[in-house]
């Protein structure tokens, strides 16, 4: 966990995020060990490494580590509250949020100078959490705490894609720890959102075909009805939606195709999957329509590509 080597001393690939786990205390790692070793053992044949040469040469990872692994623990910041410090310990360490939310360089390491400027995970975009945040309303610690433990915020939308798994797990974490993480993350984006001009409600989008307007009206508008603050199935206005505001269309396209599920066995936000209902062309037109109608940002240029990526 600290050094990124296995029992035999071989290098581990940093896909296992020991560049974050290295910040965990010995006590926490010990507790994890006790928990894991208490689980029933299962037989598992580990698959062979299929990386292309030279990546399959493990000793090269030692070079990566010299460049990018910092094993020193996080120093306390005495100017900040204990809650902030706890949050930073969790977020930078075991939480490894930067693993998705920070861009990576050509060697696959997080760009420390651009921490939390946004990244990617499993085809989805992980939005920026720092001053580059595109949210209409600044994420407060309260909103983040609600979002991280329930997967929904009235001001931003629902968690989807890999983040849905994260919030489902955080729902089981102690609320004071989630609160601490929220406090730390909120501190990364002070004063964001204050300069964003939201588009007018019922903004017309010239050049939209009648078909697309009809499809939006019949397939989307029952829930995404701007007359409601919070619509059926916990919809929030698309003008506030994180997915619609990202520079790329991946999140919006994937939400349309696969829908959004509530947490297992619990109530929550829901969106049907339109993958079988609408054609790629219809989904592309809808995505572009939503982008134009609900934001004043430049139109997406990657919609068809994102649909085809998501369909694979």
């Amino acid at each position, binding site marked *: 966990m600290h050094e990124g080597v296995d029992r035999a001393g071989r290098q581990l690939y940093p896909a296992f995020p020991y560049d974050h786990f290295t910040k965990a205390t010995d006590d926490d790692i010990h507790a994890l060990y006790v928990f894991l070793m208490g689980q029933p053992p299962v037989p598992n044949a580990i698959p062979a490494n299929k990386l292309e040469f030279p990546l399959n040469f493990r000793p090269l990872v030692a070079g990566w580590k010299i460049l990018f692994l910092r094993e020193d623990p996080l120093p306390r910041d005495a100017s900040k509250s204990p809650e902030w410090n706890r949050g930073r310990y969790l977020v930078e360490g075991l939480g490894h949020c930067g693993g998705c939310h920070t861009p990576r360089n050509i060697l696959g390491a997080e760009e420390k100078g651009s921490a939390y400027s946004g990244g990617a995970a499993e085809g989805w975009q992980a939005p920026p959490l720092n001053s580059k945040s595109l949210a209409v309303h600044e994420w407060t610690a309260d909103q983040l705490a609600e979002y991280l433990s329930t997967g929904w915020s009235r001001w931003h939308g629902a968690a989807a894609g890999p983040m849905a798994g994260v919030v489902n797990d955080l729902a089981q974490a102690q609320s004071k720890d989630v609160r601490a993480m929220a406090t730390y993350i909120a501190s990364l984006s002070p004063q964001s959102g204050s300069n964003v001009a939201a588009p007018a409600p019922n903004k017309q989008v010239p050049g939209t075909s009648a078909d697309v307007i009809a499809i939006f009206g*019949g397939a989307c508008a029952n829930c995404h009805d701007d007359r409601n603050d919070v619509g059926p199935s916990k919809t929030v206005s698309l003008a506030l939606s994180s997915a619609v505001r990202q520079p790329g269309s991946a999140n919006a396209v994937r939400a349309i195709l696969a829908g959004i599920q509530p947490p297992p066995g619990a109530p929550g936000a829901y969106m049907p999957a339109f993958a079988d209902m609408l054609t790629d062309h219809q989904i592309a037109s809808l995505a572009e329509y939503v982008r134009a109608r609900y934001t004043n940002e430049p139109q997406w240029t990657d919609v068809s590509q994102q649909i085809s990526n998501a369909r694979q």
Partner: protein
Amino acid sequence: MTIVINVNDKPQAIEADPSTPLLYVLRNELALHGPRFGCGLGQCGACTVHVDGRPTFSCLLPIAAVGERKITTLEGLLEDGKPNKLQQAFIDEQAAQCGYCISGMVMRAQALLRANPSPTDGEIRKHMRPNLCRCGTHAAILRAIKRAAAGQEKRL
């Protein structure tokens, strides 16, 4: 505005607003009362029909989006006017109380059996998840689906 859609293998010319959900057109314009309105939000499955054989919420599919795709309703599963194997299995198991969810259940199950003629119990339950029943008829519905699946197996 007239839109032509293919329903149960017949082209139908529909005069309706293009944003009208398919469900209303099937029930009102075409008098096909199999699919039903339960929620209008894609959450209950009472409106389930097939679009090119795939189970779909017809409450959320505007007719403007249908295009050339073929729509099949409960009525379209009949063979020579008689219930098909799955429909007969529902009748034989008396798998209905109020009956409101059943059309959707049959459509959802039919798609499963076409793709997987001998599903396990787990596969049936997982596949049927999008369809809700408020009367608690689930056990009978599952028996009906298994009965139809077993029947298909024997035929092979």
